[in-house]
Every structure is written in C-alpha cells, then in structure tokens.
C-alpha cells in the first residue's frame, strides 16, 4: 500500500507491506540507520523517533499508520559527523559504551529539553525512562543531559 510521509522535512512516498513496522521502513527504505532495532516489544527505546512532535517507539508502530504524518529521526537532516549539542555532550561525557541505545536517548533528550528546558535529575530520569542502557549505569548519560541543560541556560 502507498503511503506518504514527511521525513526530516522531505516528503517521500513508499509502497509498504501492511505489516511493515515504521522502524523497518525508516532504516530500509529511507536508509536512515541511526535509529536501532532492539527489542521489538516497546521496551528498550533504541528505535525512538518523533512522530508529529511526540516520541514513539517505532518498532511497535506500523508504517501504514504514519501515512500523512511528520517524522523526525536522530539524523534530522545532519550528515555524519555533524552532530547537535546533545550528541556532542554524550561524546564529551562518554554517555555511552556500546552506543546502541544512544540514538534513542538523544531523541528523548531533544524532546525532554524542548518541553522542560531546566529539568531536575529526577525529571531527566523520568524523561529517559523509556530508553534502556545496559552498559553505562546511566551515570554519564545523566551528566551529558545536565551539561546540555546548563550550557543552553548559560550556566
């Protein structure tokens, strides 16, 4: 079935299978491989994308359901190694080890800081509750988010 979606500002048309998930379409059709497939059960958050301005776990969303909607991915028009301040902070604080969860983390941090520019540690934890990291123990991830928060607020 034909669907039309806006991905990172560009409108594309795909002929998708009715049972194809959005993460598969984004990775294989748009060749945007920043978002990862982790659990396929709406648990780990590695596949987090923004759909009409809200973060979603794209492994548990059919591509067909995104018809006519607006998607933003971790790339968001940037070409590697170009990164935003959040990605830079993750690198500086070493907020990753294997890095598999990082693209999903970055998406959640973008939304968290857009909604709440000055989150407390507890609010950061709640904002990232849908993104699992099995390497870091989250300490350096928290450091990275605090660093972006403080830099954006000029602290």
């Amino acid at each position, binding site marked *: 079935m034909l669907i039309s979606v806006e991905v990172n500002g560009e409108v594309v048309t795909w002929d998708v299978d009715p049972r194809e998930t959005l993460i598969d379409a984004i990775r294989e059709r748009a060749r945007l491989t920043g978002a990862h497939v982790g659990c396929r059960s709406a648990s780990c958050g590695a596949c987090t994308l923004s759909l009409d301005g809200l973060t979603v776990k794209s492994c548990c*969303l059919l591509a067909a*359901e995104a018809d006519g909607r607006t998607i933003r991915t971790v790339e968001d028009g940037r070409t590697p190694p170009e990164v935003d301040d959040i990605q830079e902070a993750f690198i500086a604080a070493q907020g990753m080890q294997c890095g598999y969860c990082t693209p999903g983390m970055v998406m959640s941090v973008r939304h968290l800081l857009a909604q709440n520019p000055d989150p407390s540690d507890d609010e950061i934890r709640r904002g990232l509750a*849908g993104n699992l990291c099995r390497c870091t123990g989250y300490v350096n991830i928290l450091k990275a988010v605090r660093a972006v928060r403080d830099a954006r607020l000029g602290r």
Partner: protein
Amino acid sequence: MPASFAAPRTLPELLTELDGEATILAGGMTIMPLLNRGIGRAGKIVSLSGIPALRGIARSGDSVRFGAMATHSEIASDPIVAEHVPILATAAAGIGDVQVRNRGTIGGVAAYGNAGADYVTALTALGARVVVASRRGSREVAFDRFVLGLRRTDLARDEVIVAVEVPSTSGGRTAFERYFRVQGAAPTITAAAVLMPDRGRLAVGGATPTPVIVELGREFDLAATLDAVDEACAGRPFGDAHNPAPYRRAMARNFAARVLRHAREEQPC
C-alpha cells in the same frame, strides 16, 4: 492469506470494517509486541488512528467522556481530568514511559482487561461506563461488568470501544496507588478509593483476575474493609512466578489500607 490494512476516517466507515475477523489496532502498545513475536494472527488490521470522533476528552453532564483513542499522555496532562477525575491522571502518568504513554490509549487498556492494569482498577472504583459499538448498534456497559476475567471482556469480535465515561469525583475524596517491581513493567498491585458524600467504593487489582470491589458507606470500618479485601483475594487467587498469589494478597491488603487512609486524609502508613 495476505495481510490487509484499513484506516477508516469515520465511525460509520469503521463499523463496516468490523466483520468479526478484523484485528483492531489502537495505540498498539499491547498488540504490536505480540504481533512482532508472531503471537496471534492479524490478517485484517483495522487502525483507529485516523478517526477524529474517537479522540478527545470532554465534559458530558456530570461525567467526563474519554474518546477510546485518548492517550495516557493526554489523560495525564488534561485540565478537565485533573479537576474532575484526578486519580485517572495519576494512573495515566504511572503507565510505562514517555513513548508508551504517547501511543497507549484508554480504550486499548480497557479492551485488554489485564489484571491489575492501572486504568482497570481506577475505572472500576470510579464506576465508569464503556460505550461499545458495532454494526448491530451501540450499548453502554458498567466497567465492573465489562471486565469478565483475566484479559477477558464483554467485547464481542465485531465490537469496538468508542468511549469511556467516568462520573466526576468533584466534591469527593479519591486516592490511587500503584505498586510495581520494575519501572515500565505492568504493576503488581493497583488500588483506588473513591469516597463521595453519598457513596464510596474501593477497588484493588492484581491479586485476583478482576479487581476486588468493596462498596463503602459514608462511614466504614477500616479493619473490616481490609478483611473483606483479604477474603476476596483468598477466594479467587491470581499470581505468577515473580509475584505469587499469597504475596499479591498481602500487598492487596497493604495498598488497600494506603488508599483508604490517603483518601480519608489520614497519615499515610
């Protein structure tokens, strides 16, 4: 059989798709993980995402009407909910995580009817009604009669939940508690107390296949109420490997005490 996908735009269009074979897709937070694992069949998928009539939260007389596709995020942050059914906002805010709350819906949770699910217990205590539609017409069911057993509801294969209506608790006292082992996972026990000037109800979910209900008068004896919860849990035990039935039964009593004390504005234990 090749799969098909339909995304009707209106309620009448939706009803024509519901032939008893269709798999209804709301937020997908329960069914998509199952389909991804190959559990359950979905030859004909009918999405509710494109139907504006199923969205929204609004006052409806003395009740609040939730469109079946109202998401947990919307319910957690809606000013009407905060004023008229605050325990539903509390329940919504505790479900899953940000991304899950952005997709998961009140209609989906009601249709799944899982033991101890946050809304299942809260809606039971609140005396909610479920509005259900099919080609055969529409009907309203009291929520405590809608959930029949563990993940078993009164919804027929050709029916869809259109809305959930919840009486306002404005002027009363209410409390909700969720007890969980791992953040993001389904709760072990949920408890809700609704104390209105003329009636009261306690619901405790998770220790039994469907919530334990204790009707409360204007005055009630705490110890006797907790004994009634305990007895009901003993009568139809429910448990799993992580949380066996005797443990759930003990926690049901504890969390019943917490919500009753909290609703009566006594010191929490």
